[in-house]
Protein backbone atom coordinates (compact mmCIF):
# COMPACT_ATOMS: atom_id res chain seq x y z
CA UNK A 1 0.00 0.00 0.00
CA UNK A 2 2.95 2.31 0.66
CA UNK A 3 3.50 3.28 -2.93
CA UNK A 4 -0.17 3.84 -3.74
CA UNK A 5 -0.70 7.55 -4.36
CA UNK A 6 -4.42 7.19 -4.79
CA UNK A 7 -6.84 4.45 -3.83
CA UNK A 8 -10.54 4.41 -4.67
CA UNK A 9 -12.50 1.77 -2.75
CA UNK A 10 -16.03 0.65 -3.62
CA UNK A 11 -17.35 4.06 -4.61
CA UNK A 12 -21.00 4.64 -5.53
CA UNK A 13 -22.06 8.01 -6.97
CA UNK A 14 -25.59 9.18 -7.68
CA UNK A 15 -26.92 12.13 -9.62
CA UNK A 16 -30.26 12.61 -7.92
CA UNK A 17 -31.90 9.21 -8.26
CA UNK A 18 -29.69 8.04 -11.10
CA UNK A 19 -26.69 6.00 -10.13
CA UNK A 20 -23.62 6.89 -12.18
CA UNK A 21 -20.94 4.78 -10.52
CA UNK A 22 -21.31 1.34 -8.97
CA UNK A 23 -18.77 -0.03 -6.54
CA UNK A 24 -15.80 1.46 -8.38
CA UNK A 25 -12.33 0.61 -7.07
CA UNK A 26 -8.96 1.51 -8.48
CA UNK A 27 -5.38 2.12 -7.44
CA UNK A 28 -2.85 4.57 -8.79
CA UNK A 29 0.73 3.80 -7.83
CA UNK A 30 3.18 6.61 -7.16
CA UNK A 31 4.98 7.72 -10.30
CA UNK A 32 2.86 5.76 -12.78
CA UNK A 33 0.41 6.61 -15.54
CA UNK A 34 -3.00 5.08 -15.05
CA UNK A 35 -5.54 5.34 -17.85
CA UNK A 36 -9.27 5.11 -17.44
CA UNK A 37 -11.01 4.30 -20.68
CA UNK A 38 -14.54 3.61 -21.77
CA UNK A 39 -17.36 4.89 -23.91
CA UNK A 40 -19.10 8.21 -23.60
CA UNK A 41 -21.25 8.31 -20.47
CA UNK A 42 -19.49 5.36 -18.85
CA UNK A 43 -18.74 7.48 -15.79
CA UNK A 44 -15.09 8.41 -16.35
CA UNK A 45 -15.54 12.13 -15.76
CA UNK A 46 -17.84 11.42 -12.85
CA UNK A 47 -15.09 9.43 -11.17
CA UNK A 48 -12.54 12.22 -11.59
CA UNK A 49 -15.03 14.74 -10.26
CA UNK A 50 -15.68 12.52 -7.28
CA UNK A 51 -11.97 12.28 -6.51
CA UNK A 52 -11.57 16.05 -6.75
CA UNK A 53 -14.57 16.63 -4.51
CA UNK A 54 -17.00 18.16 -6.99
CA UNK A 55 -19.21 15.07 -6.73
CA UNK A 56 -19.89 13.25 -3.49
CA UNK A 57 -19.48 9.51 -3.04
CA UNK A 58 -22.60 7.97 -1.59
CA UNK A 59 -20.66 4.93 -0.49
CA UNK A 60 -17.01 3.91 -0.43
CA UNK A 61 -13.76 5.66 0.29
CA UNK A 62 -11.03 7.62 -1.47
CA UNK A 63 -7.52 7.60 -0.01
CA UNK A 64 -4.65 9.86 -0.96
CA UNK A 65 -1.25 8.84 0.47
CA UNK A 66 -3.15 6.66 2.89
CA UNK A 67 -5.41 9.45 4.20
CA UNK A 68 -9.10 9.70 3.48
CA UNK A 69 -10.07 12.52 1.16
CA UNK A 70 -13.61 11.24 0.60
CA UNK A 71 -15.28 14.22 2.26
CA UNK A 72 -12.87 17.00 1.34
CA UNK A 73 -14.07 20.01 -0.62
CA UNK A 74 -12.54 20.62 -4.07
CA UNK A 75 -10.43 23.56 -2.84
CA UNK A 76 -8.91 21.35 -0.12
CA UNK A 77 -8.27 18.46 -2.50
CA UNK A 78 -6.10 20.72 -4.69
CA UNK A 79 -4.31 21.95 -1.62
CA UNK A 80 -3.10 18.48 -0.66
CA UNK A 81 -1.73 17.79 -4.12
CA UNK A 82 -4.41 16.41 -6.44
CA UNK A 83 -4.89 18.63 -9.46
CA UNK A 84 -7.77 18.11 -11.88
CA UNK A 85 -7.85 19.38 -15.46
CA UNK A 86 -11.57 19.17 -16.14
CA UNK A 87 -13.26 18.14 -19.35
CA UNK A 88 -13.54 21.05 -21.74
CA UNK A 89 -10.56 22.74 -20.04
CA UNK A 90 -12.71 25.39 -18.32
CA UNK A 91 -10.22 28.20 -18.57
CA UNK A 92 -11.12 31.70 -17.43
CA UNK A 93 -11.62 33.06 -20.92
CA UNK A 94 -11.74 36.75 -20.09
CA UNK A 95 -8.60 36.60 -17.96
CA UNK A 96 -5.13 36.63 -19.47
CA UNK A 97 -2.90 33.58 -19.81
CA UNK A 98 -0.75 34.87 -16.95
CA UNK A 99 -3.77 35.49 -14.72
CA UNK A 100 -4.98 31.95 -15.37
CA UNK A 101 -1.58 30.62 -14.35
CA UNK A 102 -1.52 32.81 -11.25
CA UNK A 103 -4.87 31.45 -10.13
CA UNK A 104 -3.51 27.95 -10.62
CA UNK A 105 -1.00 28.78 -7.91
CA UNK A 106 -3.68 30.00 -5.49
CA UNK A 107 -3.03 27.62 -2.57
CA UNK A 108 -0.53 29.33 -0.22
CA UNK A 109 1.82 26.35 -0.52
CA UNK A 110 1.94 26.90 -4.30
CA UNK A 111 1.99 30.68 -4.10
CA UNK A 112 5.23 30.52 -2.16
CA UNK A 113 7.00 28.98 -5.15
CA UNK A 114 5.06 30.86 -7.83
CA UNK A 115 8.10 32.21 -9.70
CA UNK A 116 9.67 28.79 -9.93
CA UNK A 117 6.47 27.13 -11.14
CA UNK A 118 5.94 29.85 -13.71
CA UNK A 119 9.42 29.37 -15.17
CA UNK A 120 8.73 25.66 -15.34
CA UNK A 121 5.38 26.16 -17.05
CA UNK A 122 6.91 28.53 -19.59
CA UNK A 123 9.77 26.09 -20.26
CA UNK A 124 7.21 23.38 -20.85
CA UNK A 125 4.98 25.57 -23.03
CA UNK A 126 7.00 28.39 -24.60
CA UNK A 127 3.92 29.51 -26.51
CA UNK A 128 2.26 30.46 -23.21
CA UNK A 129 5.16 32.75 -22.42
CA UNK A 130 4.84 34.63 -25.68
CA UNK A 131 1.07 34.91 -25.18
CA UNK A 132 1.01 35.60 -21.48
CA UNK A 133 -0.85 38.88 -21.78
CA UNK A 134 -3.40 37.58 -24.23
CA UNK A 135 -6.90 36.61 -23.09
CA UNK A 136 -7.21 32.86 -22.58
CA UNK A 137 -10.33 32.85 -24.76
CA UNK A 138 -8.31 34.00 -27.75
CA UNK A 139 -5.97 30.98 -27.76
CA UNK A 140 -6.31 28.09 -30.20
CA UNK A 141 -7.65 24.75 -28.97
CA UNK A 142 -4.20 23.24 -28.56
CA UNK A 143 -2.87 26.29 -26.74
CA UNK A 144 -5.89 26.27 -24.47
CA UNK A 145 -5.21 22.66 -23.55
CA UNK A 146 -1.60 23.55 -22.79
CA UNK A 147 -2.76 26.42 -20.62
CA UNK A 148 -5.19 24.14 -18.82
CA UNK A 149 -2.40 21.68 -18.03
CA UNK A 150 0.05 24.48 -17.22
CA UNK A 151 -2.50 26.02 -14.86
CA UNK A 152 -3.05 22.71 -13.11
CA UNK A 153 0.71 22.20 -12.74
CA UNK A 154 1.03 25.58 -11.00
CA UNK A 155 -0.44 24.07 -7.83
CA UNK A 156 2.56 21.71 -7.61
CA UNK A 157 0.50 18.53 -7.69
CA UNK A 158 1.74 15.07 -6.81
CA UNK A 159 -1.01 13.63 -8.94
CA UNK A 160 -2.50 15.16 -12.06
CA UNK A 161 -5.90 14.05 -13.33
CA UNK A 162 -6.51 14.83 -16.99
CA UNK A 163 -9.99 14.56 -18.45
CA UNK A 164 -9.90 14.06 -22.22
CA UNK A 165 -6.81 16.17 -22.94
CA UNK A 166 -6.81 15.14 -26.60
CA UNK A 167 -10.44 16.05 -27.25
CA UNK A 168 -10.88 18.31 -30.24
CA UNK A 169 -7.18 18.43 -31.13
CA UNK A 170 -5.64 17.72 -34.51
CA UNK A 171 -3.82 14.37 -34.90
CA UNK A 172 -0.42 16.04 -34.61
CA UNK A 173 -1.43 17.85 -31.44
CA UNK A 174 -2.90 14.63 -30.05
CA UNK A 175 0.53 13.07 -30.34
CA UNK A 176 2.15 16.12 -28.73
CA UNK A 177 -0.33 15.88 -25.89
CA UNK A 178 0.45 12.21 -25.19
CA UNK A 179 4.18 12.93 -25.39
CA UNK A 180 3.64 15.66 -22.86
CA UNK A 181 1.78 13.34 -20.50
CA UNK A 182 4.69 10.90 -20.71
CA UNK A 183 7.27 13.62 -20.12
CA UNK A 184 5.43 15.11 -17.14
CA UNK A 185 5.28 11.61 -15.74
CA UNK A 186 9.05 11.23 -16.19
CA UNK A 187 9.45 14.39 -14.12
CA UNK A 188 7.77 12.54 -11.29
CA UNK A 189 4.11 13.52 -11.63
CA UNK A 190 1.69 10.65 -11.13
CA UNK A 191 -1.00 10.63 -13.82
CA UNK A 192 -4.62 9.58 -13.87
CA UNK A 193 -5.75 9.93 -17.45
CA UNK A 194 -9.27 9.75 -18.80
CA UNK A 195 -9.40 9.29 -22.56
CA UNK A 196 -11.62 8.35 -25.45
CA UNK A 197 -8.52 7.82 -27.56
CA UNK A 198 -8.25 4.30 -26.17
CA UNK A 199 -5.31 3.12 -28.24
CA UNK A 200 -3.01 5.99 -27.23
CA UNK A 201 -4.21 6.00 -23.65
CA UNK A 202 -3.48 2.29 -23.22
CA UNK A 203 -0.15 2.58 -24.99
CA UNK A 204 1.36 4.98 -22.48
CA UNK A 205 -0.35 3.58 -19.39
CA UNK A 206 1.44 1.46 -16.80
CA UNK A 207 -1.95 0.28 -15.69
CA UNK A 208 -5.45 0.80 -17.04
CA UNK A 209 -9.10 0.34 -16.15
CA UNK A 210 -12.09 -0.04 -18.44
CA UNK A 211 -15.27 1.57 -17.23
CA UNK A 212 -18.63 0.51 -18.64
CA UNK A 213 -22.03 1.75 -17.52
CA UNK A 214 -20.57 2.99 -14.27
CA UNK A 215 -18.70 -0.22 -13.40
CA UNK A 216 -15.07 -1.23 -13.74
CA UNK A 217 -15.27 -4.21 -16.09
CA UNK A 218 -11.62 -4.84 -16.80
CA UNK A 219 -8.20 -3.85 -15.59
CA UNK A 220 -4.59 -4.69 -16.29
CA UNK A 221 -1.33 -3.42 -17.77
CA UNK A 222 -1.75 -0.93 -20.59
CA UNK A 223 -0.16 -3.11 -23.26
CA UNK A 224 -1.99 -6.12 -21.92
CA UNK A 225 -5.38 -4.48 -22.32
CA UNK A 226 -4.39 -3.13 -25.70
CA UNK A 227 -3.80 -6.70 -26.87
CA UNK A 228 -7.03 -7.98 -25.36
CA UNK A 229 -9.40 -9.05 -28.14
CA UNK A 230 -12.45 -7.84 -26.25
CA UNK A 231 -10.97 -4.36 -25.76
CA UNK A 232 -9.89 -4.35 -29.39
CA UNK A 233 -13.38 -5.22 -30.52
CA UNK A 234 -15.28 -2.91 -28.17
CA UNK A 235 -13.13 0.22 -28.20
CA UNK A 236 -10.37 0.16 -30.72
CA UNK A 237 -12.04 -1.69 -33.56
CA UNK A 238 -14.94 0.67 -33.23
CA UNK A 239 -12.67 3.64 -33.62
CA UNK A 240 -11.29 2.30 -36.86
CA UNK A 241 -14.70 1.41 -38.19
CA UNK A 242 -15.87 4.95 -37.52
CA UNK A 243 -13.08 6.26 -39.70
Amino acid sequence: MENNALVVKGVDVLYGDVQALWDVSLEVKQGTIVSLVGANGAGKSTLLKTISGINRAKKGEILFSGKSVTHLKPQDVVDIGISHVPEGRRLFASLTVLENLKLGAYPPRARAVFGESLTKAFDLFPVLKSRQNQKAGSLSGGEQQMLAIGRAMMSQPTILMLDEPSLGLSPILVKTMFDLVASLNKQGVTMLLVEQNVRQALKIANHAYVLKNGRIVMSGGGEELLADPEVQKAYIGERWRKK
Partner: protein
Amino acid sequence: MLKLLSFSLVTQLVINGVLFGTMYGIAAIGLSLIFGTMRIMFLAQGTMIIFFAYLSFWAFRLFGVDPYLSLVIVIPICVFLGAALYQGLFRQAAAEEDKNISLLIAVGLMFFVEALMTVGWGGTPRAISTAYSTVAFRPMGLDFPLTRLLGLLMSILAAAVVVIFLKKTFIGMAVKAASEDIIATTLMGISPHRVNSVAFAIGIGLAGVAGVEVATVYSFDPFFGFNFVLNALISLALGGIGSVTGALLGGIMLGLLQSLSSFLVPGWSDAIAYVVFLLVLMGKPEGLLVRSVKKA
Protein backbone atom coordinates in the same frame (compact mmCIF):
# COMPACT_ATOMS: atom_id res chain seq x y z
CA MET B 1 -39.91 73.16 -27.31
CA LEU B 2 -36.74 72.78 -29.32
CA LYS B 3 -36.02 76.43 -28.73
CA LEU B 4 -35.81 75.65 -25.05
CA LEU B 5 -32.97 73.25 -25.68
CA SER B 6 -30.27 75.83 -25.60
CA PHE B 7 -26.68 74.75 -25.31
CA SER B 8 -26.39 75.55 -21.64
CA LEU B 9 -29.59 73.73 -20.82
CA VAL B 10 -28.53 70.56 -22.61
CA THR B 11 -25.14 70.75 -20.94
CA GLN B 12 -26.82 71.12 -17.58
CA LEU B 13 -29.11 68.15 -18.21
CA VAL B 14 -26.24 66.01 -19.39
CA ILE B 15 -24.14 66.87 -16.39
CA ASN B 16 -26.98 66.19 -13.97
CA GLY B 17 -27.56 62.90 -15.69
CA VAL B 18 -23.93 61.89 -15.35
CA LEU B 19 -23.85 62.91 -11.70
CA PHE B 20 -26.88 60.81 -10.80
CA GLY B 21 -25.83 58.07 -13.18
CA THR B 22 -22.53 57.38 -11.46
CA MET B 23 -24.46 56.86 -8.24
CA TYR B 24 -26.63 54.21 -9.92
CA GLY B 25 -23.44 52.93 -11.44
CA ILE B 26 -21.68 52.09 -8.19
CA ALA B 27 -24.84 50.44 -6.88
CA ALA B 28 -24.86 48.42 -10.11
CA ILE B 29 -21.20 47.42 -9.67
CA GLY B 30 -22.13 45.91 -6.31
CA LEU B 31 -25.03 44.02 -7.88
CA SER B 32 -22.84 42.83 -10.70
CA LEU B 33 -20.09 41.47 -8.44
CA ILE B 34 -22.53 39.68 -6.14
CA PHE B 35 -24.40 38.27 -9.11
CA GLY B 36 -21.12 37.17 -10.63
CA THR B 37 -20.16 34.81 -7.84
CA MET B 38 -23.57 34.04 -6.25
CA ARG B 39 -25.87 34.10 -9.30
CA ILE B 40 -28.52 36.13 -7.49
CA MET B 41 -29.67 39.72 -7.76
CA PHE B 42 -29.01 41.23 -4.36
CA LEU B 43 -32.25 43.18 -4.20
CA ALA B 44 -31.47 44.59 -0.76
CA GLN B 45 -28.64 46.69 -2.20
CA GLY B 46 -30.75 49.86 -2.49
CA THR B 47 -32.13 49.50 1.02
CA MET B 48 -28.61 49.01 2.36
CA ILE B 49 -27.62 52.24 0.61
CA ILE B 50 -30.45 54.08 2.35
CA PHE B 51 -29.49 52.46 5.65
CA PHE B 52 -25.98 53.88 5.31
CA ALA B 53 -27.45 57.22 4.24
CA TYR B 54 -29.29 57.22 7.59
CA LEU B 55 -26.14 56.31 9.50
CA SER B 56 -24.33 59.18 7.87
CA PHE B 57 -27.30 61.47 8.56
CA TRP B 58 -27.43 60.60 12.25
CA ALA B 59 -23.67 60.76 12.66
CA PHE B 60 -23.92 64.29 11.34
CA ARG B 61 -27.04 65.27 13.27
CA LEU B 62 -26.03 63.80 16.62
CA PHE B 63 -22.26 64.09 16.64
CA GLY B 64 -21.59 66.66 13.98
CA VAL B 65 -19.50 64.21 11.93
CA ASP B 66 -18.98 65.56 8.46
CA PRO B 67 -20.56 63.10 5.97
CA TYR B 68 -17.48 62.96 3.76
CA LEU B 69 -15.22 62.49 6.74
CA SER B 70 -17.53 59.74 7.99
CA LEU B 71 -16.53 57.67 4.95
CA VAL B 72 -13.29 56.89 6.73
CA ILE B 73 -15.25 54.82 9.22
CA VAL B 74 -18.30 53.99 7.10
CA ILE B 75 -16.34 52.14 4.40
CA PRO B 76 -14.46 49.77 6.73
CA ILE B 77 -17.68 49.10 8.64
CA CYS B 78 -19.50 48.35 5.39
CA VAL B 79 -16.80 46.04 4.10
CA PHE B 80 -16.84 44.12 7.36
CA LEU B 81 -20.64 44.11 7.49
CA GLY B 82 -20.78 42.82 3.91
CA ALA B 83 -18.63 39.82 4.72
CA ALA B 84 -20.62 39.27 7.93
CA LEU B 85 -23.94 39.43 6.05
CA TYR B 86 -22.70 36.74 3.69
CA GLN B 87 -21.36 34.49 6.43
CA GLY B 88 -24.44 34.95 8.61
CA LEU B 89 -27.29 34.97 6.12
CA PHE B 90 -26.21 33.53 2.79
CA ARG B 91 -23.44 31.02 3.42
CA GLN B 92 -25.74 28.04 3.82
CA ALA B 93 -28.12 28.97 1.01
CA ALA B 94 -25.29 29.72 -1.40
CA ALA B 95 -24.29 26.06 -1.42
CA GLU B 96 -27.76 25.05 -2.66
CA GLU B 97 -28.45 24.39 -6.30
CA ASP B 98 -31.68 26.39 -5.99
CA LYS B 99 -30.72 30.07 -6.13
CA ASN B 100 -34.26 31.16 -5.23
CA ILE B 101 -33.48 30.60 -1.56
CA SER B 102 -30.67 33.16 -1.64
CA LEU B 103 -32.84 35.53 -3.63
CA LEU B 104 -35.64 35.27 -1.07
CA ILE B 105 -33.18 35.93 1.74
CA ALA B 106 -32.13 39.10 -0.07
CA VAL B 107 -35.77 40.15 -0.43
CA GLY B 108 -36.42 39.35 3.23
CA LEU B 109 -33.38 41.39 4.25
CA MET B 110 -34.62 44.29 2.16
CA PHE B 111 -38.04 44.38 3.83
CA PHE B 112 -36.55 43.82 7.27
CA VAL B 113 -34.11 46.72 7.00
CA GLU B 114 -36.84 48.89 5.50
CA ALA B 115 -39.18 48.09 8.40
CA LEU B 116 -36.38 48.63 10.92
CA MET B 117 -35.65 52.07 9.52
CA THR B 118 -39.33 53.02 9.47
CA VAL B 119 -39.79 52.03 13.11
CA GLY B 120 -36.55 53.55 14.27
CA TRP B 121 -36.35 56.70 12.25
CA GLY B 122 -39.86 57.33 10.92
CA GLY B 123 -41.02 57.88 7.37
CA THR B 124 -40.24 61.57 7.05
CA PRO B 125 -37.72 62.36 4.34
CA ARG B 126 -34.31 63.37 5.61
CA ALA B 127 -31.41 65.21 4.07
CA ILE B 128 -28.10 66.40 5.34
CA SER B 129 -27.62 70.11 5.12
CA THR B 130 -24.13 71.22 5.91
CA ALA B 131 -22.53 74.61 5.59
CA TYR B 132 -21.48 73.73 2.07
CA SER B 133 -24.73 72.10 0.91
CA THR B 134 -25.71 75.19 -1.01
CA VAL B 135 -22.28 75.93 -2.41
CA ALA B 136 -22.23 75.67 -6.18
CA PHE B 137 -20.04 76.56 -9.11
CA ARG B 138 -21.78 78.60 -11.74
CA PRO B 139 -19.61 78.87 -14.83
CA MET B 140 -21.36 80.24 -17.94
CA GLY B 141 -24.82 80.16 -16.44
CA LEU B 142 -24.51 76.48 -15.52
CA ASP B 143 -25.08 75.21 -12.04
CA PHE B 144 -22.90 72.58 -10.33
CA PRO B 145 -23.69 72.02 -6.68
CA LEU B 146 -20.54 71.08 -4.78
CA THR B 147 -22.14 68.02 -3.18
CA ARG B 148 -22.98 66.55 -6.57
CA LEU B 149 -19.48 67.11 -7.85
CA LEU B 150 -18.05 65.43 -4.77
CA GLY B 151 -20.51 62.60 -5.31
CA LEU B 152 -19.29 62.16 -8.86
CA LEU B 153 -15.70 62.15 -7.70
CA MET B 154 -16.42 59.56 -5.01
CA SER B 155 -18.21 57.27 -7.47
CA ILE B 156 -15.41 57.37 -9.96
CA LEU B 157 -12.77 56.86 -7.28
CA ALA B 158 -14.70 53.95 -5.76
CA ALA B 159 -15.10 52.29 -9.16
CA ALA B 160 -11.40 52.76 -9.89
CA VAL B 161 -10.43 51.20 -6.57
CA VAL B 162 -12.62 48.19 -7.32
CA VAL B 163 -11.15 47.79 -10.81
CA ILE B 164 -7.62 47.88 -9.43
CA PHE B 165 -8.49 45.47 -6.63
CA LEU B 166 -9.96 42.96 -9.09
CA LYS B 167 -7.01 43.26 -11.41
CA LYS B 168 -4.10 43.34 -9.00
CA THR B 169 -4.89 41.07 -6.06
CA PHE B 170 -5.07 37.30 -5.99
CA ILE B 171 -8.48 37.29 -4.34
CA GLY B 172 -9.72 39.97 -6.75
CA MET B 173 -8.72 37.82 -9.70
CA ALA B 174 -10.43 34.90 -7.99
CA VAL B 175 -13.67 36.91 -7.80
CA LYS B 176 -13.46 37.61 -11.53
CA ALA B 177 -12.66 33.97 -12.25
CA ALA B 178 -15.55 32.81 -10.08
CA SER B 179 -17.99 34.93 -12.01
CA GLU B 180 -16.92 33.03 -15.11
CA ASP B 181 -16.81 29.51 -13.73
CA ILE B 182 -17.25 28.81 -10.05
CA ILE B 183 -16.47 25.09 -10.32
CA ALA B 184 -13.18 25.71 -12.13
CA THR B 185 -12.40 28.28 -9.45
CA THR B 186 -12.76 25.72 -6.68
CA LEU B 187 -10.49 23.39 -8.67
CA MET B 188 -7.82 26.11 -8.33
CA GLY B 189 -8.07 25.77 -4.55
CA ILE B 190 -10.30 28.79 -4.03
CA SER B 191 -13.16 28.50 -1.57
CA PRO B 192 -16.49 29.66 -3.02
CA HIS B 193 -17.40 31.11 0.38
CA ARG B 194 -14.27 33.20 0.24
CA VAL B 195 -15.06 34.77 -3.12
CA ASN B 196 -18.72 35.21 -2.19
CA SER B 197 -17.87 37.06 0.98
CA VAL B 198 -15.35 39.23 -0.83
CA ALA B 199 -17.99 40.07 -3.45
CA PHE B 200 -20.39 40.97 -0.64
CA ALA B 201 -17.76 43.02 1.16
CA ILE B 202 -17.11 45.06 -1.97
CA GLY B 203 -20.82 45.35 -2.80
CA ILE B 204 -21.78 46.59 0.64
CA GLY B 205 -18.68 48.78 0.76
CA LEU B 206 -19.91 50.47 -2.40
CA ALA B 207 -23.36 50.75 -0.81
CA GLY B 208 -21.68 52.73 1.97
CA VAL B 209 -20.16 55.13 -0.53
CA ALA B 210 -23.47 55.49 -2.36
CA GLY B 211 -25.23 55.98 0.99
CA VAL B 212 -23.10 58.99 1.83
CA GLU B 213 -23.68 60.37 -1.66
CA VAL B 214 -27.44 59.94 -1.31
CA ALA B 215 -27.42 61.57 2.10
CA THR B 216 -25.62 64.64 0.82
CA VAL B 217 -27.38 65.01 -2.53
CA TYR B 218 -30.95 63.77 -2.16
CA SER B 219 -33.60 63.80 0.46
CA PHE B 220 -34.41 60.20 1.29
CA ASP B 221 -36.83 58.05 3.27
CA PRO B 222 -36.77 54.35 4.18
CA PHE B 223 -38.65 53.32 1.02
CA PHE B 224 -36.33 55.06 -1.36
CA GLY B 225 -34.04 52.03 -1.46
CA PHE B 226 -36.28 49.88 -3.61
CA ASN B 227 -36.45 52.56 -6.26
CA PHE B 228 -32.70 52.80 -6.11
CA VAL B 229 -32.10 49.10 -6.66
CA LEU B 230 -34.48 49.13 -9.61
CA ASN B 231 -32.39 51.88 -11.17
CA ALA B 232 -29.27 49.85 -10.51
CA LEU B 233 -30.91 46.86 -12.22
CA ILE B 234 -31.72 48.95 -15.28
CA SER B 235 -28.13 50.21 -15.29
CA LEU B 236 -26.92 46.63 -15.32
CA ALA B 237 -29.23 45.74 -18.18
CA LEU B 238 -27.89 48.68 -20.17
CA GLY B 239 -24.21 48.18 -19.38
CA GLY B 240 -24.15 44.42 -19.26
CA ILE B 241 -23.39 42.24 -16.30
CA GLY B 242 -19.89 41.14 -15.42
CA SER B 243 -17.82 44.23 -15.97
CA VAL B 244 -17.21 47.09 -13.57
CA THR B 245 -16.86 49.76 -16.21
CA GLY B 246 -19.92 48.39 -18.01
CA ALA B 247 -22.00 48.78 -14.86
CA LEU B 248 -20.73 52.30 -14.29
CA LEU B 249 -21.38 53.32 -17.90
CA GLY B 250 -24.83 51.68 -17.75
CA GLY B 251 -25.59 53.86 -14.73
CA ILE B 252 -24.47 56.94 -16.58
CA MET B 253 -26.62 56.01 -19.58
CA LEU B 254 -29.63 55.64 -17.31
CA GLY B 255 -28.86 58.92 -15.56
CA LEU B 256 -28.74 60.70 -18.90
CA LEU B 257 -31.93 59.05 -20.07
CA GLN B 258 -33.80 60.07 -16.93
CA SER B 259 -32.40 63.56 -16.86
CA LEU B 260 -33.25 64.30 -20.49
CA SER B 261 -36.63 62.60 -20.44
CA SER B 262 -37.71 64.28 -17.23
CA PHE B 263 -37.21 67.60 -18.94
CA LEU B 264 -38.67 66.70 -22.33
CA VAL B 265 -41.66 64.71 -21.09
CA PRO B 266 -42.10 65.60 -17.43
CA GLY B 267 -43.49 62.81 -15.29
CA TRP B 268 -42.63 60.11 -17.79
CA SER B 269 -39.00 59.53 -16.97
CA ASP B 270 -39.54 56.37 -14.87
CA ALA B 271 -41.91 54.89 -17.43
CA ILE B 272 -39.43 55.59 -20.20
CA ALA B 273 -36.57 54.07 -18.20
CA TYR B 274 -38.55 50.84 -17.70
CA VAL B 275 -39.52 50.67 -21.36
CA VAL B 276 -35.85 50.96 -22.31
CA PHE B 277 -35.06 48.31 -19.68
CA LEU B 278 -37.56 45.91 -21.26
CA LEU B 279 -36.47 46.70 -24.80
CA VAL B 280 -32.82 46.05 -23.96
CA LEU B 281 -33.65 42.80 -22.20
CA MET B 282 -35.64 41.64 -25.21
CA GLY B 283 -33.25 42.85 -27.89
CA LYS B 284 -29.75 42.62 -26.42
CA PRO B 285 -29.98 40.91 -23.04
CA GLU B 286 -26.20 40.76 -22.60
CA GLY B 287 -26.17 44.58 -22.37
CA LEU B 288 -25.65 47.35 -24.86
CA LEU B 289 -21.96 47.79 -24.11
CA VAL B 290 -20.89 44.16 -24.13
CA ARG B 291 -18.94 42.50 -26.86
CA SER B 292 -19.53 38.80 -26.49
CA VAL B 293 -16.45 36.97 -25.22
CA LYS B 294 -15.64 33.66 -26.80
CA LYS B 295 -16.03 30.90 -24.27
CA ALA B 296 -12.85 28.94 -23.59
